[in-house]
């Protein structure tokens, strides 16, 4: 008996000991050696190379196909558009652009045309020479290939007035961009597009391809007859091959691992400051962090939740409080599909909501006042975001800094709810489900904040929160109007207020149409604001639209995030431009050195 017990006791002792050995150093007892050590600096490595680690890779290298920022970033290392945003400016006037493949550009008000003089002596990486025909080809190509989910609609709108190639003709496309000697002439459909056109082409979808090279590699041959062979055909040769005029050329794309660019020795402008630009895919935050601190990466993507893990490291260069042209908010659908599984019983009986639940403005305003904006911004963004009252955000011409913003006020919300649906809502309550895309921590927190506050206002106000995958879950439900309340974000295509107002407020707007918000009168106001020639009056018109959005309350904005960028101290010359595609910034104007 005693022998067995002692054996048991022995075992238990060993187990306890091992537990202690595991837990004690974790309690912070062990790393005294590291605390005593001076903070190790970041070593200088990979001279002449810019190495970055991010969490996504390009979807495609074809400029006419890629809409995501990672693809756009890769395109802009290798290809060049006619013009680009100058420094920190956002292209509010024609001279706020830097000439790239265009030397100069002039506007003809009578013809509604932009004439670009194309630079001479520019060579493509594979040897071709830049000609105005290449420019015409590049634009006609993007419009006629019109890839599904691609950026063609941005070029289509100013040039042919519609969003899809199906809705226009080859003749219209052909006529919108023509070669004239050393120039290329673009005809826009409306004076409203004068600056919008310039802003649009200063991006990855406005870059110039080498027509001969494309044709030689099986792409569209430039004629009307061949259009149908390439319309919405994917993938194509340019998906994985690049031939541009830019300061770098593609060295290798190792899918899933990295993409490498090397210096173009024959660049027409000043030579690139880096011999190599290497973009490595590293989804694991810890690995990115360690790489940055070890000097193996000059820039890494730092998710917002972890910004304070990099506090107080002297060899890091931290840039913060940059306002991005991005906003997101809650949207309430006014005519939910009656068969939606997310509205409970489908009736105002305390076990669900009717499909037209959100048509009552008191309900919408109640929801708006039930959201705790400060907690959201402080907890999720560590305070680094600004609250906005409408889709027109800071950085856009027409932004009203004094516009009315929603306020978290549970008492006021309760008042609205008591009035809603003839007083029935307060006594009956409701049940429905909100959706968010799984994995998105920010949207989950926002839904839960709303849920918690609604519940505390009235215990019968039960909003459930459910995650679904974005692609197969939420997107289709938005289309079929099964979704009830959801969060959507919008990133600027162009830094123009119209680019934000239209999707949220016009009848055919991207979001508004799925909410069933918008009417003819409002549409007229939106168009009037866009077309207003007097800048001061235009600003007033946008102020008015912002107030309308607040008053109508089809949704409520949550925040406009402020961004941070982390580099090692060896990187110089960085500056912020909110329209710049891609994360690390204007690499061509940056440099790396030990001093």
């Amino acid at each position, binding site marked *: 008996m005693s022998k067995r017990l002692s*054996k048991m006791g022995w075992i*238990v002792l060993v187990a306890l000991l091992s537990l202690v050995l595991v837990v004690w150093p974790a309690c912070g007892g062990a*790393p005294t050696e590291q*605390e005593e050590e001076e903070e190790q600096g970041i070593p200088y490595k990979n001279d002449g190379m810019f190495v970055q680690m991010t969490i996504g890779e390009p979807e495609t290298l074809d400029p006419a196909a890629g809409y995501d920022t990672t693809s756009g970033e890769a395109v802009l290392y290798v290809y060049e558009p006619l013009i680009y945003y100058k420094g920190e400016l956002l292209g509010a006037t024609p001279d706020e652009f830097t000439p790239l493949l265009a030397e100069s550009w002039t506007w003809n008000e009578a013809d509604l045309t932009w004439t670009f003089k194309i630079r001479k002596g520019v060579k493509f990486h594979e040897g071709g020479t830049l000609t105005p025909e290449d420019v015409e080809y590049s634009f006609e190509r993007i419009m006629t290939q019109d890839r599904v989910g691609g950026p063609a609609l941005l070029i289509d709108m100013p040039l042919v007035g519609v969003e899809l190639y199906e809705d226009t003709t080859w003749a219209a496309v052909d006529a919108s961009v023509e070669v004239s000697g050393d120039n290329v002439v673009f005809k826009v459909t409306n004076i409203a597009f004068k600056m919008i056109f310039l802003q649009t082409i200063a991006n990855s979808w406005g870059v110039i391809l080498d027509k001969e090279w494309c044709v030689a590699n099986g792409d569209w041959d430039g004629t009307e007859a061949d259009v149908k062979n390439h319309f919405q055909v994917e993938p194509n040769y340019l998906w994985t091959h690049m031939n541009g005029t830019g300061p770098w050329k593609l060295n290798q794309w190792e899918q899933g691992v990295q993409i490498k660019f090397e210096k173009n020795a024959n660049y027409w402008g000043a030579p690139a400051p880096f011999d190599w630009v290497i973009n490595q895919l590293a989804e694991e*935050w810890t690995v990115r962090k360690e790489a940055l601190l070890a000097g193996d990466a000059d820039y890494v993507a730092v998710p917002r939740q972890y910004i304070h893990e990099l506090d107080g490291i002297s060899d890091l260069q931290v840039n913060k409080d940059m306002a991005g042209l991005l906003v997101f908010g809650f949207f309430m659908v006014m005519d939910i599909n009656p068969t939606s599984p997310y509205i409970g019983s489908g009736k105002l009986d305390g076990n669900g909501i009717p499909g037209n639940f959100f048509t009552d403005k008191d309900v919408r305003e109640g929801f708006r006042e039930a959201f705790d904006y400060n907690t959201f911004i402080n907890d*999720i963004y560590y305070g680094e975001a600004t609250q906005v009252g409408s889709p027109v955000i800071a950085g856009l011409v027409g932004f009203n800094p004094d516009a009315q913003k929603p306020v978290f006020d549970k008492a006021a919300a309760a008042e609205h709810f008591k009035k809603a649906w003839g007083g029935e809502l307060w006594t009956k309550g409701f049940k429905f489900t909100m959706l968010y895309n799984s*994995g998105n*921590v920010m949207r989950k927190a926002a839904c839960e904040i709303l849920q918690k506050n609604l519940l505390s206002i009235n215990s019968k106000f039960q909003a459930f929160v459910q995650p679904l995958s974005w692609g197969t879950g939420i997107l289709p439900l938005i289309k079929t109007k099964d979704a009830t309340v959801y969060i959507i974000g919008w990133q600027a295509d162009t830094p123009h207020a119209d680019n934000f107002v239209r999707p949220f407020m016009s009848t055919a707007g991207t979001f508004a149409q799925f909410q069933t918000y918008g009417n003819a009168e409002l549409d007229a106001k939106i168009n009037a604001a866009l077309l207003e020639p007097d800048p001061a009056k235009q600003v007033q018109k946008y102020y008015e639209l912002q107030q309308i959005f607040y008053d109508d309350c089809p949704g409520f904005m949550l925040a406009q995030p402020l961004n941070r960028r982390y580099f090692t101290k060896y990187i110089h010359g960085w500056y912020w431009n909110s329209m710049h595609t891609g994360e690390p910034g204007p690499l061509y104007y940056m440099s790396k050195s030990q001093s």
Partner: protein
Amino acid sequence: MSDWRLMARQLARNPLSLMGIIIIVIFIIIAIFAPLIAPAPEGHLNPYMIPRDGYVATPQPPSQNHIFGTTEGQYDIFYGVIWGARSAFRVALVVISITLLVGITLGSLAGYFGGVLDEIIMRITDIFLAFPTLILAMAIVAAMGPSLRSVMIALTAVWWPSYARLIRGDILQVREEDYIEASRGLGASSGRVIVRHVLPNAIYPCLIMASLDIGAVVLSAAALSFLGLGVPEGYADWGQLTSFARNWMVGPPGNPFKYWYAVITPGAFILFFVLGWNLLGDAFRDILDPRLARR
């Protein structure tokens, strides 16, 4: 009856198996009394979702309100590991019991009757065995949404083939024995023969494997949660909790173990749960082996 009593006594005599039993009993108690040990705060709609105290991402160290601290997103770790015991048992028991049922039924039919039935069942088994687990789990979660039920279905689909094969192999051995011949000679129906004679002798390896697999099922469920294929975020599940710790493994330079509480605690619960069942399973095998040899 005396067989089981003998087995129980042998289990109790072995110190490691005793430790295993004690561990399992502790977990059972935790699971049953979870609402008392870690009560949900007022107005909390679903007790299986861990309550959050704020929305800040940074885990907070143990304090009076949160005795084990909070993990990323301010989920209470103590609540999570306690209710996680419930989730662990639910997943493990449901998966193992259905797996045993399906596997034993199909395996028995295949082993006993042989022929075409055997071929068909074995081909179906092959298909499931060759199926990559990840893809299956992904597809199920995508179709049904993330939930404990999706995890259970995915794991059951992947697990049953090995049991089918195991019992089939044992039955192939057992059915040639004399007493089976005798029983059939006496006119017993196939079903009766299978259930009363073949199975009781062939089932021990399955039971051993089942006890070992309980730990494996929980580990697999944790891995699925970790990959985002399991329970929804914030569900009280050990795998979820460990995945919350993923980006806090290494703290700021100079204090790399700063967030140890978010990392160690859920992992320790998984470890001890798995350890307990493994010790028990090993003990079963050590005890049942001589029994098998005695035949």
